């Protein structure tokens, strides 16, 4: 029992074991040796009452084998258990009691300076924590890079919405003549002027974040971070200079990057959304590969700016979205200048001529039925087939953080904690929850999820798609109300009167509670924002009728 007062007690067997065990366990224990933790090795073979101690050990711990490790009186187990405790941080925690806990450089290190990472850093700094943020953009295959702020600010939401706005203004110019505006000049669009203005704005945002972090005393490094040891990362800057930093807690906020299909010519000649928003020349005749919202939004504004745009789709549009809405969006785009090539995938991209833009030849194969080959020339090929989490090359395996090997995402619990207690994860890299959530909570979470699509015909939605609603509640329990509508602004402009569309999905057994809201039309994003709040408050069909003018035209279940 006196032994238990020692910090770390390791029971070992005979001499021949000692060598092996010390080599095995020295990996774990070296950092504690550095921290002046004394380790008492008890060699059972040499102790006079070795066998009786061994007996006591079995009774205490149910463990017959050596090494048998105790820390501060707590039984850890054998070699495997000790390694496990080392990897998940619990060993260090036990060794570091509050009096002589290891001092770390920072309270918190955040890897990734995007929407998630920056929000987190500001919160933490607000609580007086010492915080380090690492942000580093690995250049695209074509060499594009950007500043602090992550995807949304630099190559996502912000520039996307601005280019969408540029396209809308083009449409507005066309409408304006019907409203009496007269001008002689042919109106043309200058890509370079638009990109310069957008990049200037983004630059001011990058700078704003730098100032904001500095004012909150958050340290920022433009360096690539990777784990080398528990609680320790290696940071490499643009010039290759390396520094090391330790922290009590870490947050992974590394986000995603566009995926490449792995066909000849993809990285050499194709661009992605990472390159599009700062492209120094007009893309010209463009092939957009993919059926995601990125693909459709980009195809939409490129066509709106006057370019010849084709979208190549492997199977369906907007997987995961309400399919009725997806079809309507696709149909609208098709009747408004976007070509679709359905059920084809590119297999090769060759360069016919270098230039800004150059000329590329795309070869594609059909995915269904008859094998067919398609060949066409384009100035630009924009790949938008999906995004992959940036979790593979940051040393997570070194510290034992588990990721989903298939998609690279990080599973976390309700507190966004990974399987390693001192490492958390936020944002696009998150997988679902570790444990299954009951349907009620699931529904609650889905209700608070809303999205907007800035396609030429904007789409906003909140809650469940019709497919998910049917799956979760059963067709017979739902009432779907829908309506085509003709925005007033479109009337005089002579635009379609059978395109804009709204639908709500209600749960019959809960007062016709609105569980899904979908709208297709101008300013759908703004409209949905308000509805999302109402739905969160438990909006029912009756309440809706009392406030707005979407009239039910079809009251039967679809």
């Amino acid at each position: 029992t006196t032994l238990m007062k020692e910090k770390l007690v390791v029971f070992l067997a005979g001499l021949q074991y000692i060598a092996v065990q010390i080599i095995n366990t020295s990996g774990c224990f070296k950092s504690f040796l550095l921290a002046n933790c004394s380790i008492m090795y008890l060699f059972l073979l040499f102790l006079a009452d070795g066998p009786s101690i061994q007996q006591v050990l079995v009774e205490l711990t149910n463990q017959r084998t050596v090494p048998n490790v105790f820390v501060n009186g707590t039984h850890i187990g054998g070699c495997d258990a000790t390694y496990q405790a080392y990897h998940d941080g619990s060993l260090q925690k036990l060794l570091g009691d509050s009096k002589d806990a290891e001092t770390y450089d920072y309270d918190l290190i955040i890897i990734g300076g995007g929407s998630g990472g920056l929000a987190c850093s500001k919160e933490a700094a607000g609580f007086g924590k010492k915080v380090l943020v690492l942000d580093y953009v690995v250049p695209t295959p074509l060499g594009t890079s950007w500043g602090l702020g992550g995807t949304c600010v630099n190559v996502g939401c912000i520039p996307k919405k601005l280019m969408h706005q540029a396209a809308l203004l083009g449409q507005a110019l066309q409408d304006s003549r019907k409203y009496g505006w007269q001008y002689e000049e042919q109106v043309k669009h200058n890509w370079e002027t638009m990109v310069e203005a957008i990049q200037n704005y983004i630059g001011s945002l990058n700078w704003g974040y730098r100032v904001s972090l500095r004012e909150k005393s958050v340290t920022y490094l433009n360096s690539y971070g990777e784990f080398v040891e528990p609680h320790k990362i290696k940071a490499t800057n643009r010039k290759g200079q390396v520094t090391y930093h330790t922290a009590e807690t870490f947050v992974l906020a590394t986000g995603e990057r566009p995926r490449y299909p792995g066909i000849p010519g993809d990285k050499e000649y194709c661009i992605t959304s990472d390159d599009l928003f700062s492209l120094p020349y007009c893309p010209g005749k463009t092939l957009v590969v993919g059926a995601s919202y990125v693909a459709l939004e980009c195809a939409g504004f490129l066509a709106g700016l006057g370019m010849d745009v084709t979208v190549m789709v492997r199977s369906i549009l907007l997987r995961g979205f309400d399919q009725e809405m997806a079809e309507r969006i696709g149909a609208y785009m098709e009747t408004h200048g976007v070509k679709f090539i359905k059920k084809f995938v590119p297999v090769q991209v060759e360069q016919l001529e270098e230039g800004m833009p150059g000329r590329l030849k795309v070869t594609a194969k059909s995915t269904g039925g008859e094998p067919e080959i398609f060949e066409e020339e384009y100035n630009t090929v924009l790949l938008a087939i999906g995004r992959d989490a940036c979790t593979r090359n940051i040393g997570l395996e070194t510290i034992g953080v588990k990721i989903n090997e298939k998609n690279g995402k990080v599973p976390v619990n309700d507190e966004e904690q990974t399987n390693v207690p001192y490492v958390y994860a936020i944002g696009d890299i998150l997988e679902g929850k570790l444990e299954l959530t009951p349907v009620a909570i699931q529904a609650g979470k889905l209700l608070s999820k809303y999205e907007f699509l800035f396609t030429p015909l904007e789409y906003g939605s909140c809650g469940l798609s019709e497919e998910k609603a049917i799956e979760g509640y059963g067709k017979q329990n739902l009432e779907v109300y829908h309506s085509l509508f003709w925005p007033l602004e479109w009337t005089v402009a002579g635009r379609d009167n059978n395109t804009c569309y709204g639908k709500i999905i209600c749960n019959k057994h809960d007062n016709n509670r609105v569980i899904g809201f979908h709208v297709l039309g101008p300013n759908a994003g703004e409209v949905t924002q308000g509805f999302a709040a109402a739905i969160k408050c438990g909006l029912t069909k009756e309440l809706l009728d009392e406030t707005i003018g979407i009239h039910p035209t079809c009251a039967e279940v679809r």
Partner: protein
Amino acid sequence: MGWEEKQVRGYSEFVRTAQHYHGRPIFALFCGDKDAEGKSWCPDCVTAEPVVRKELHNMPDESVFIYCLVGDRAYWKDPNNEFRKNLKLTAVPTLLKYGTPQKLVEEECFKAELVRMLFTED
């Protein structure tokens, strides 16, 4: 080579000077006019100037520091003055890196750390 300072007054002189040094890093501090005793009508400019001057040695080699007096209080208050219209200035003092979106405005200019960051950021 180090850095050099140019003192100018008014918008046209500022633009001429900035164009003259095109190709070199240009930093500019915009302040309200000074009276006969050398004191500006803008109290924040009075506070900011010494802070900025203390950090000038952090500017990269070949830099040009333009110290620009914008005009009197009435001129500055006019929402259509050239500095507001063309350079998009919103307040004095403003310290900026010419040709980039990087700038510090009002109290931000009081913080040596931020001024240093503006001068050394690339």
